[in-house]
């Protein structure tokens, strides 16, 4: 626990000088230094996130060479955002609310907004998109079938003749081993909704839940620093349940209807020479983040006011209510040096190293079914 605390202080030391010049409370924008600080905090607190250096030729000189962008891989996405949007019944609206983090009023509010907007999804406002998707789904099915036979019926005539019998790749001597192999190899999971004993179902197992198919996709999520907008920017790369890369259209199925093709587009990933990824355009990030920060700060001020009434002896009780407070180390320090560190003990406004944690909660409203926000336990 001591090393934990030490590392925690180290990170605080690291970011503190930056904080003084910070403008993020006023604009919602952050400097590269603050991005690194917030990223350090995120990777430290939630080890699923990692720094990457990316392609050397694309390195940004205002960021440390080994801290160019953040990445988390294999983020689960159990359902399509579309299937949320299309369920119209009232009880579904209730269900949508539960997608937020119940411990934070803010998140609930965002999710409410999403629930309120869902009507537009199948109203006349969005006809093009709804028309598009079945078409493209069809394409996808065709692709899947084509891949099953590995015959390239959908592509140019030249290869059609050559490839159909790729299926006939000799199964080799393995054929002879089949019997022995079957015995000790776990077969594909049963397709019916049979639960295995531990209550864990396999990702590839299709399960009907309220008519929505459970198709587990996974996403690699990257956060880069956008120099122009001075905000973080999020990038998505997806895989379907068979681990094939997702097409743009499939990715848009996981974006809430309001954002697909508007704020979420496919663009060149800035830290690779060739890679394309879906990205949420950052032009509104700063203003949204500013609102969130203001709201959180307002909450803190209320707490401060309340604390003045209570007297400073009740420090820790007020802190517990604050979701973004520092928990363990804080209480330890109050034991050690309660009066000496008085100003440190004030519940303070949102610090910049929480920026990315909050940012992820905001992103979670744009991609409601991709569980980017692993920070709910925080």
């Amino acid at each position, binding site marked *: 626990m001591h090393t934990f605390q030490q590392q925690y202080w180290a990170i605080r030391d690291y970011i503190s000088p930056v904080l003084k010049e910070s403008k993020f409370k006023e604009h919602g924008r952050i400097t590269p230094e603050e991005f690194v600080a917030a990223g350090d905090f995120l990777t430290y607190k939630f080890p699923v996130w990692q720094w990457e250096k990316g392609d050397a030729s694309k390195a940004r000189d205002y960021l440390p060479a080994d801290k160019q962008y953040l990445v988390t891989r*294999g983020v689960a996405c159990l359902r399509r955002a579309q299937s949320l949007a299309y369920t119209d019944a009232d009880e579904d609206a209730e269900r949508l609310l539960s997608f937020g983090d119940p411990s934070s009023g803010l998140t609930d509010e965002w999710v409410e907004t999403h629930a309120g907007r869902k009507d537009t999804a199948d109203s006349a406002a969005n006809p093009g998109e709804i028309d598009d998707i079945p078409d493209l789904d069809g394409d996808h099915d065709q692709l899947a079938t084509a891949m*099953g036979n590995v015959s390239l019926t959908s592509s140019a005539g030249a290869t059609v003749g050559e490839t159909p019998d790729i*299926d006939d*790749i000799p199964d080799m001597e393995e054929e002879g081993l089949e019997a022995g192999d079957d015995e000790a190899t776990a077969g594909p999971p049963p397709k019916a909704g049979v639960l295995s004993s*531990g209550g864990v179902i396999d990702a590839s197992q299709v399960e009907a839940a309220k008519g929505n198919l*459970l198709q587990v996709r996974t996403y690699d999520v990257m956060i880069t620093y956008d120099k122009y907008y001075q905000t973080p920017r999020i990038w998505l790369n997806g895989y379907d349940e068979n681990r094939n890369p997702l097409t743009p259209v499939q990715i848009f199925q996981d974006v809430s209807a309001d954002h697909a093709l*508007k704020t979420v587009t496919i663009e060149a990933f800035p830290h690779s020479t060739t890679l394309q*990824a879906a990205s949420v355009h950052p032009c509104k990030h700063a203003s949204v983040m500013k609102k969130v920060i203001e709201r959180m700060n307002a909450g803190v001020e209320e707490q401060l006011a309340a604390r003045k009434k209570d007297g400073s002896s009740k420090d820790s009780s007020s802190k517990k209510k604050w979701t973004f407070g520092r928990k363990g180390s804080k209480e330890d320090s109050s034991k050690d040096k309660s009066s000496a560190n008085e100003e440190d003990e004030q519940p303070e406004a949102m610090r910049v190293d929480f920026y990315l944690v909050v940012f992820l909660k905001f992103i979670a409203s744009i991609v409601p079914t991709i569980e980017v926000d692993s920070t709910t336990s925080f």
Partner: protein
Amino acid sequence: MPVVQFAPFSSLVQPGFWHELTRLKIDVLRLSDESLTVNGSYSVGRSVRDRETGQDVALGCNLVLGAAAFEQPSQVPPMSVAIRGVFKNYNTIEEFKVADKASIFNEVTNDMWNSIVESKDASKLTQFLLLTFSDLKKYQYYYWFAFPAFVAKPAWEISTEGWKAADHELNASQLTSIFESLHAQTKPFFLVKLTGDAAKVHPMDEADVFFASDSPDSTIVGFLDPSASPDNPGWPLRNLLTYLQTLYPSKTTSVRILCWRDGELPVAGRAWKSRFGVVASGGDRQTVKPTAVGWERHPTTNKLTARMADLAPMMDPTRLADQAV
């Protein structure tokens, strides 16, 4: 007693790998189809809780290949391990089809077998093989993975208790100390020695000393388990068991296995995900190389065939232009 069924690896190739292969093919390899060494990785088996149904959904037993696969293995994150693979890219689809896959497969399994018999080296127990044909003009990549595993005859059997949660066998402080040890230095395979409430993790190299001196009840053989399926341990265990049976035949009448699946300490109210089971084999000491299996089956047809990644939607400039609004 039921036969132990191992969850096979499933390959997950990040688009970055195909981009890197494209670059390498054009700028470096050109027409060469020599085998190369590539590096993949797997991590502890993960599952997510479905917020609607409250069930845990297992996320598959993935072997991941990324853009850095052709570079020297770099630092892998805690609770995942890097594994080495043999990579071969063919210039035409015909060559890809007629390639002598059995002999390439044999080369890999020979290497694995020799590392067991000659050097007692557990680090080569998990390897993979990747054959590709890249149709660069269409942004289509045909590929076939193999994850060679030796077949035990007779098969390994799990005790009548079956696989159970690790915290039924070990207490929380033992599990926590195993976690801390693995988190500091993640090993694909390890040995656990229990003394009272303490659990100490030893590297596989110490198996000689370990099996010579310790009573079977205080020793556990552990491995980082990429599977999250409750009744199926992951693929790496298969070769580990072959390793044990070959080198320590007298100890394999009953082996206590810990399938390590906890990537982080469980949050309050949630159980440990790791599994524990006692497996046994009636087989004799292996003296000749056992047969091996492990070609990846096509995920949709479940047949032994190659598969294809179609990256045209994400790479083809004309199709990307269509997407741009």
